[in-house]
């Protein structure tokens, strides 16, 4: 818990240098990463994935299949890491928990009336408690973007704090839905509010709104985490989600992470990719590295 006197005044304006952030973010895409470095990077990215299915049509069968995939990414390639977690709706947590058994893969559940967040607070708290009671190791909440844009920062702060309390031991990821916040200034402010209110992770998007995660918006959030760490000594984790489906882009994100927060964040305790199709693209790249032959989606599991 952060001492009350350390909490800044959120009504004061924050300014992010838009041109600077975009220029800096584009620099990260120009690093040359080859051979062993690429291989290690791909393995690390694979290990950071929150394999996600968040659809109205999700069934127990679909979730079981995804959990199987999480444990057997591509058996033709021995020695692969597993993904970090499975991310599902609260109603699927029990199924996922049972299917994953003692594999060490975590179950993350979205909660708080995901993806809109348009529900009363007591409903959100019950939603969260339901997920945790069913065995969720991590909870992905959405902030009330409407309230945030109205300037009701205290409301958003209190809500996150209340959900954090409802989470108990589960780690809390706070989804800012940056596509709806529009400006980097607002993303930065929302990041600060979330971290001071008790978030363990800050996460860009639900994946339901376009644009989802972009490199500049992730950089703004990484810098917020860095500044928060310098001020309070507390590490916060980061999860970009949505729109990251190619291994090359994932490597760019890892470069950005390493050059902004450093090695201490380069593992799946402190960084995650929220993605569904990224895993297969990474697996195809790994098989290309191993066999020297370009791969076909026909030989990989359906995601």
């Amino acid at each position, binding site marked *: 818990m952060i001492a009350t006197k350390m909490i800044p005044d959120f009504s004061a304006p924050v300014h992010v240098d838009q041109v600077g952030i975009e220029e800096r973010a584009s620099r990260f895409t120009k690093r040359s990463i080859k051979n062993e470095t690429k291989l290690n990077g791909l393995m690390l990215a694979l290990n950071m994935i929150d394999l996600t299915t968040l659809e109205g049509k999700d069934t127990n069968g679909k979730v079981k299949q995804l959990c199987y995939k999480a444990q057997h990414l591509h058996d033709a390639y021995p020695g692969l890491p597993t993904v970090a977690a499975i991310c599902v709706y609260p109603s699927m947590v029990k199924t996922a928990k049972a299917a994953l058994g003692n594999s060490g893969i975590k179950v993350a559940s979205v909660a708080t009336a995901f993806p809109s967040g348009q529900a009363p607070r007591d409903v959100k708290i019950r939603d969260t408690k339901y997920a945790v009671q069913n065995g969720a190791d991590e909870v992905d909440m959405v902030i009330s973007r409407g309230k945030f844009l109205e300037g009701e920062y205290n409301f958003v702060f209190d809500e996150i704090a209340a959900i954090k309390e409802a989470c108990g031991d589960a780690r809390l990821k706070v989804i800012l839905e940056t596509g709806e916040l529009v400006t980097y200034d607002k993303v930065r402010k929302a990041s600060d509010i979330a971290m001071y209110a008790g978030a363990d992770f800050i996460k860009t998007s639900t994946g339901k709104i376009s644009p989802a995660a972009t490199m500049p918006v992730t950089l703004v959030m990484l810098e917020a985490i860095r500044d928060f760490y310098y001020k309070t000594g507390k590490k916060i984790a980061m999860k970009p989600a949505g729109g990251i489906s190619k291994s090359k882009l994932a490597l760019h994100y890892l470069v950005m992470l390493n050059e902004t927060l450093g090695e201490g964040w380069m593992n799946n305790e402190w960084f995650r990719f929220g993605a569904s199709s990224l895993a297969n693209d990474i697996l195809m790249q790994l098989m290309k590295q191993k066999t020297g*032959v*370009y*791969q*076909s*989606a*026909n*030989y990989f599991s359906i995601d």
Partner: protein
Amino acid sequence: MAKTSEKRLEVLKTYKIYIGGQFPRTESGRYYVATNSKNENLANVCLGSRKDFRDAVVAARNAFGGWSARAAFNRGQILYRIAEMLEGRKAQFIDELMKQDSTKALAESEVNLCIDRLIYYSGWCDKFQQLFSSVNPVASSHFNFSVPEPTGVVAAIAPQNDSLLGLVSVIAPIIAGGNTGIVLASATKPLCAVTFAEVLNSSDLPGGVVNILTGKVGELVPFFADHMDVNATVFCEADAATQKLIKEKASLNVKRVLLYDKVKWSTATGQSPYFIMDLQEIKTTWHPIENIGGAKAGY
């Protein structure tokens, strides 16, 4: 006006590759100089890399679903449209062929033959299925029939000794049968291939159905043969070592290997529905019926 036009510098065309309906430069940034027998420099041409090929396969695979699902009749219309566009740009192709050592008379007849060949395959688009499909007699109450279906993504290395005719003769049966493809143009005579890509691009042919690369055969042929997402490889040279290499690498995902080293493209044997059938899979369906051969109307 006349005086300024004498001083005017001609605007030369940049010969680029054709991937997914776009004209990018090669990702490798490399080029080579295409020359003719008089050793005149004709153009700087992209020296395509394996990554260009990889990108082209992705484009072809993405285009395959839509192209193969089109009505065969509509594919015929589009092939006809390609022929129309080629007819309209005849002069440009004749000019390019002559730059690449052809004579006027030979160039004209080559372009005409290409147009006619496209019309020929345009007609076959919705007809070869009837010829090569069958209703099969079976000893159970099933209606059993076999139909040709496109094999998928075809990687072809166009005949290397001519500029346009070989290219058109290889592309037309690929797309007439509902496949999509990546074609490597003649390395020594690449000009017409790039201009033909412009014809394709203005012919209602969806982007990615045909992708045209320029570059060296020796460098790219292993990837044409071993890419796991390619379903057939076409090779037209009588080069035993390369043929062997293709056959070996193609075995990795059991792709079809078509060797057309004995085909004379300028003759009537250079066109046939069997070139379409070379790139088709036969799918047989067993459809249960109530009463076969009975007096009643069972089906």
